[in-house]
């Protein structure tokens, strides 16, 4: 799941300072689940901004609303009039949502209200930890199901490094050494031979490099013929 965090309110207020009419749009998907941009957060943000404005003697109009999935055009389209009717849109979704709105209405200003962070696993309520960086070439079948790219501070493919001591990472003593965890897991699975196998340098071309990556399912794409004159309306 994509995990994001609300930007500090001061920063958001500053971003929006010179605009009169603001639409705040949340999203009911990942960012609602990670308690950053759901309906509740949108309402609280709007309320807090209003209180701040009262303190500073400023006047701005805020409207808060939520869409099902902000990264999909069809859902965004549903609130088009609210977006275009405002001076600026504050997206309380991940950066994908903000960019979807931005791409759909390029003349209109869309600012991010959240800092999009990680692909995280909810370890417990309120705690998300990064376990994937989306490198595009998964190898965890060789590392006991534990991703060293995201969980090792040095993203080492052959570990542990010399900085691993007492199962802790030298970069941050509070973090478990990913390779110690990999060793334990492989031992548990009786596959310790894997740890001695040298993994050659990874093909990083699948990772974030050379601009934006696009994943395509040709069979799912609509053909030109199918698309013709057809706009999905919900």
């Amino acid at each position, binding site marked *: 799941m994509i995990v994001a965090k609300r930007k*500090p*309110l*001061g920063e958001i*207020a500053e971003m929006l300072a010179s605009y009169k009419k603001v639409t705040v749009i949340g999203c009911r998907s990942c960012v609602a689940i990670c308690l950053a941009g759901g309906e*509740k957060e949108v*309402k*609280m943000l709007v*309320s*807090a*901004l*209003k*209180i*701040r404005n*009262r*303190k*500073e*003697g400023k006047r701005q109009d805020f409207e808060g609303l939520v869409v099902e999935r902000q990264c999909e055009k069809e859902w965004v389209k549903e609130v088009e009039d609210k977006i275009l009717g405002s001076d600026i849109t504050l997206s309380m979704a991940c950066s994908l949502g903000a960019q979807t709105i931005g791409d759909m209405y390029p003349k209109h200003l869309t600012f991010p209200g959240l800092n999009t962070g990680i692909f995280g696993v909810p370890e417990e309520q309120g705690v998300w930890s990064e376990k994937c960086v989306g490198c595009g070439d998964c190898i965890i079948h060789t590392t006991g199901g534990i991703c060293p790219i995201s969980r090792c501070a040095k993203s080492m493919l052959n570990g542990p490094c010399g900085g691993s001591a007492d199962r802790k990472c030298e970069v941050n003593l509070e973090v478990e050494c990913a390779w110690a965890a990999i060793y334990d897991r492989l031992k548990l699975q009786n596959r310790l031979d894997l740890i001695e196998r040298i993994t050659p340098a990874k093909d990083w071309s699948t990772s974030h490099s050379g601009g934006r990556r696009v994943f395509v399912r040709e069979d799912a794409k609509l053909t030109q013929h199918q698309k013709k004159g057809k706009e999905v309306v919900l």
Partner: protein
Amino acid sequence: MTDRRPKIVGFCCEKHGADAAVLAARSGKHIDASVRLVQVPCTGRIDGIHLLSALEEGADAVFVLGCLEKNCYYDTGSIEGRKRVGYVKQVLAEAGIEKERVEMFNAASTNAWAFPEAAAKMVEVAKRLGPIGGGEK
């Protein structure tokens, strides 16, 4: 008509919170008239938006009065309440508003002093800080 200050909203739970307020009254405690109590079943029902919207609607200070944490009628309700108040404090601080304007208190139904003390503290805070933005709504 003058807009008399301070204005304080207190959310109290129907269990220990309300009982403590009733006991305080029956014990002859004086409470500042500016305190307006709103009853909810449990302080776990409190949502940050309730506290914020009270401030937005003109309250100078808001407080929540729930059961003692180890003796909550709904087991963990007042712990939840405390966490919600904590989050609102954080939001207010980020927005540049004094976070003392929002506070959580706990009381057992037998604590006659708890509600008057909470009310007095919030009245003091509200008088010291004054209305948000100098009083115009």
